[in-house]
């Protein structure tokens, strides 16, 4: 806080224009709002959550939640930047869990077969979503709402026919468990590392490869993007397949982590991932956002979600905090976006 005041006074005196302008550059990035929000939320729970919140165990509790939401939030964020929404992930997660548990648990086939089948299912649902969105021009919210219910019904129906129950147990071999669903050091889920990897890949795609420019352009103005020669249909289909794949991955890792799968476990991911992405500074209508922002937004959401248990407050208040936080984040992100838009360099 002290240094902030110093910077401001220094800038007013005009003695450090470079420092001021580099702060200006930072302020115009899409993730600045989500970073400030994350720091504020962490500070809040570090103070009210007591000593336990900042221990390894406390950190693990929100990191674990963040990693599962985060793996889904990254591709959902990409889709949102491209101007589309995917809520079918809420059914793909349990469908993938059930697929791997049924194949490798109930029928006792090799774990690889189950994992590949589950991931393939995710890709297939994504592909169907993409093709439907392109061919019908129906808003993707509606298309994926349809596939959300269709996949949920299919999962339940097939599960009852094949296994006769809505929950299936699975015993994975140690190697598969170590890779996909284990607690490292007894508390950190291995998915945290997958999340990190996914963030690096998606970050490369969005910010460093030329495809990122295609995604931003697609969300900004689809017709202009197409006229500029971007294969918009292919990009949209691939993005939907990406979110299907990531959702399926989370489903598989959950099944291996808890040694069982249930037909209805993923619905909370729909809103949680969208909230994380929006807190992360992605514009709901597309064309603006960053991967670092999505990661910050996910962490912010997870801290609130878990931190409440470390405070003396009733856990029922968590939703209230998340709701207020979401609105505050959107307003703050709007402000920062306006700052970025109206920015003009000083005349020399």
């Amino acid at each position, binding site marked *: 806080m002290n240094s902030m005041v110093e910077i401001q006074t220094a800038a007013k005196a005009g003695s450090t224009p470079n420092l001021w302008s580099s702060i200006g*550059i930072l302020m115009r990035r899409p993730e600045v709002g989500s970073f400030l929000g994350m720091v504020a939320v962490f500070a809040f729970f570090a103070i009210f959550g007591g000593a336990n919140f900042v221990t390894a165990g406390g950190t693990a509790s929100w990191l674990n939640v963040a990693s599962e939401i985060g793996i889904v939030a990254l591709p959902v964020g990409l889709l949102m930047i491209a101007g589309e929404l995917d809520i079918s992930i809420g059914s793909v997660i349990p469908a993938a869990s059930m697929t791997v548990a049924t194949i490798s648990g109930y029928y006792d086939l090799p774990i690889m077969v189950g994992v590949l089948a589950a991931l393939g299912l995710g890709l297939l649902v994504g592909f169907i979503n993409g093709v439907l969105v392109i061919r019908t021009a129906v808003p993707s919210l509606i298309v994926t709402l349809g596939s959300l219910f269709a996949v949920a019904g299919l999962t339940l129906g097939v599960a009852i026919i094949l296994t006769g129950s809505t929950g299936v147990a699975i015993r994975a071999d140690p190697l598969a468990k170590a890779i996909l669903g284990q607690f490292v050091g007894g508390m950190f889920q291995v998915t945290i590392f997958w999340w990190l990897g996914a963030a690096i890949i998606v970050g*490369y795609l969005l*910010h*460093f*490869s*030329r495809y*990122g*420019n*295609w995604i*931003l*352009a697609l969300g*900004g*103005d689809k017709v*202009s*993007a*197409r*006229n*500029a*020669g*971007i294969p918009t249909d292919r990009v949209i289909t691939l993005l939907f397949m990406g979110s299907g794949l990531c959702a399926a991955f989370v489903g598989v890792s959950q099944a291996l982590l808890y040694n069982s799968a249930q037909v209805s476990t993923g619905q909370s991911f729909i809103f949680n991932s969208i909230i994380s992405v929006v807190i992360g500074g992605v*514009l709901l209508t597309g*064309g*603006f956002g960053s991967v670092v922002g999505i990661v910050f937004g996910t962490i912010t959401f997870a801290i609130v979600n878990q931190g409440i248990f470390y405070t003396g407050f009733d856990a029922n208040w968590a939703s209230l905090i998340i709701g207020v936080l979401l609105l505050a984040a959107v307003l703050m992100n709007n402000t920062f*976006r306006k700052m*970025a*838009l*109206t*920015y*003009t*360099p000083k005349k020399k």
Partner: protein
Amino acid sequence: MAEPILQLSNVNKSFGPIDVLHDISLAVKAGEVLCLLGDNGAGKSTLIKILSGVHQPTSGTILMDGEPIQFASPRYASDLGISTVHQFGGAFPLMSIGRSFFVGVEPTRKWGPFSIYDRRKANEIAVKAVQEFGITRIDDGDRLVGGLSGGERQSLAIARAVHFGARVLILDEPTAALGVKEAAHVLRIVLEARKRGLAVIFITHQVIHALTVGDHFAVLIRGALAADFRKGEKTREEITDLMAGGEAMAELEAEIESYQSAHEGRAPPVADLR
């Protein structure tokens, strides 16, 4: 240079039973500004879409450099050097100048095994291209397009088209949403593009803007070419009259006058005017 770059010959377009364009013949040469004038609904947008490959003509031919050609897609037309700039620049407000300049043709550089978007190069080229058109206020390629004024956005889009080798520049109402000063700016850029030997098709319904930059004028009324004349052949009043429908307007005036003389100077009720 005598041969037109782009020529329409007896082009018709209908959507189902509705005829939108009848028998349009037009030509535009390099280093020439063709102004396409017309009221709303006169068929200007359809004509642009035919020129830029969005629609195919129902009958008639398009000639490029004297050869008959079919634009199968907007992409194909732009590959041949036909570039359309829309009213708001058709750009992406939340993208940086450098990024939006290179949408679809991003420069990349190698970074280890990865090929990454070359931000510095993109920004440099984009800023240089815009400054060459006299927009010296743009000097930071990281600025967002949405932060530019309407005129600057148009200039950016035109500079982009020229940079990527456009030979025919189609400007769709570039000055419609602009203030007087900014419109003047865009008109100057149109002249700059002409000086560089581009063929410019300038669509507008502002006669003054057209007269300022145009070499050749065509007026569309209800899908047909009502007039085709060169600079200095018609006055501003004549053109405005033509665009407003000429005879239809004169008839209306006569009707109002006769009503007023019969009703002690009162204006006629709307229902009586058909």
